[in-house]
């Protein structure tokens, strides 16, 4: 029994990847947990320039979910490449570098400046609902998704995974557009655009009006979109949205994902997430599953 999984030409020791923006650069959780129990980490979304992120309230709880409006606070690609990457590069973990931007040019320049870092997968974030720099505009139209994928493809030698927004009518169409544009893989879903109003103050909670919903509340939506994407493209998929345990990981694999990312659940019960790889192994043993590849997309 091995929980390892092939993803493109890489081997993940298990299909659990920490989701971008929820795990920093891995250093904080590493103080408390053995983070190498995971299969990989998708690092906090980077932009060309450092960003301070959004003002005002940045988090709000909802039933079985949370909304965030961090607004891509990050140190910028140069600080990542020169200071952070050297500190973290030697981990026994698949490294995913998540990049956002506001214009095609800022995306391309950011990616070029990261080219010197020897990371495994570039995750192109065209789906952050919280800022223009998140590029959600690119991610909600098939044409612009294809365009940006193509341009990035031409500017990097990295494995290229495009992260899709759920705030679209037809996710399969967008995924196909990314495939045409030359993506190697798809990851989804980013947070669902949502809103909160405080009736006491009679104000919208977030300075930025809308914010991104994550957590178990969105899991059934995410599962549906992963399934639709798997039907629409041949690209390998990293599924995410509200996953909290091994059974849910298996649901995403069965829907067609080759690996998953987990974000919000680190906030609610980190212990439980680090136990998922062991849980997966027990499940495989019980069910006589020799390799996780057996169950990918079987529903």
């Amino acid at each position, binding site marked *: 029994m091995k929980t390892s999984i092939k993803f493109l030409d890489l081997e993940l020791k298990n299909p659990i990847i920490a989701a971008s*923006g*929820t*795990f*920093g650069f891995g250093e*904080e*959780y590493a*103080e*408390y*947990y053995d983070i190498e129990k995971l299969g990989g980490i998708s690092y*906090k979304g980077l932009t060309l320039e450092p960003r*301070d*992120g959004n*003002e*005002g*309230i*940045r*988090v*709000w*709880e*909802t*039933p*079985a*979910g*949370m909304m*965030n409006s*961090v607004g891509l*606070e990050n140190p910028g690609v140069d600080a990542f490449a020169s200071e952070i990457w050297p500190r973290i590069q030697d981990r026994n973990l698949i490294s995913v570098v998540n990049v956002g931007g506001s214009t095609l040019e800022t995306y391309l320049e950011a990616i070029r400046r990261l080219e010197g870092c020897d990371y495994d997968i570039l995750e192109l974030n065209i789906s952050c609902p919280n800022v223009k720099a998140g590029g959600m505009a690119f991610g909600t139209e098939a044409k612009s998704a294809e365009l940006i994928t193509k341009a990035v493809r031409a500017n990097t030698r990295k494995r290229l995974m495009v992260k899709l927004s759920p705030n679209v009518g037809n996710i399969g169409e967008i995924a196909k557009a990314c495939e045409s544009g030359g993506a190697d893989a798809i990851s989804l879903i980013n947070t669902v655009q949502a809103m909160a109003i405080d009736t006491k103050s009679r104000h919208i909670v977030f300075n930025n009006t809308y914010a991104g919903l994550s*957590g*178990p509340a969105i899991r059934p939506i995410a599962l549906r979109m992963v399934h639709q994407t798997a039907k629409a493209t041949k690209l390998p998929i990293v599924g995410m949205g509200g996953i909290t345990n091994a059974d849910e990981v298996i649901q995403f694999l069965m829907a067609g994902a080759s690996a998953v990312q987990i974000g*919000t659940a*680190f*906030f*609610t*019960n*980190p*212990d*439980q997430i*680090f*136990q998922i790889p062991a849980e997966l192994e027990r499940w495989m043993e019980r069910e006589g599953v020799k390799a996780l590849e057996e169950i990918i997309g079987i529903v």
Partner: protein
Amino acid sequence: MGVEGSEGRVLSIREVGEEIVHLIVSTETTPKPGQFYMLRAWQEAPLLGRPISVFDYNEGKVEFVFKVVGKGTEILAQLKVNDEIQLQGPYGNGFPAIEGKILLVGGGLGNAPLHATAKNLKAQGQAVDLRLGFAEQIFLEEEFVQAATDTQFVVGGLVTDGLDMTKYDAVFTCGPHPMMEAVVKMARDAGIPSYVSIEKRMACGVGACLVCTCKTKSGNKKTCKDGPVFEGEEVFYEDKHQIS
């Protein structure tokens, strides 16, 4: 479930004021004064843990004092002796070590972390005065009196009224943000350093998610990890009168 140390059991729980609860929990962790834990005593709802400061710590027992203000604290308040509770932490930095005579100014539930801090300073032989404001009723009076060299309570009024900071080497404060801002100003005028403990909505508690960012003079800081204690001048500076 739970890595070593994150599970605790309720050893004692009682109301010490209106909707104010004093909770004692077993733990294998060792917190410093001014640190906090993310508390959780439910399965699914609400989603996030609740940050609560250390009120006291004695060999294997950590104490909290909290006010019931919403769903999370309501569930915590209904715990019974021997119930399980998850303590993620201890997180955060705590107040700094400073030589000399220290003034601690608190308001409401902000008094809680000052108790642990005062007790610790006193145990180290430092002179420490507590000035504690309460809206209506003092809670845990005896404990606060024991914790410091001199403890004074203000009920209803402004705890900053008539404070003379020139007698002290530093002031630590925790409470409503306008109160802390006033304390920082008075410290500035008296020429002593001030330290404030900030409250922000949190998710991860460890510094990974950036939802608790506190704008400071020297850029963004993480309240959960770089704080919750910051130099007063860093947070309440010049035209920065309001921290959200």
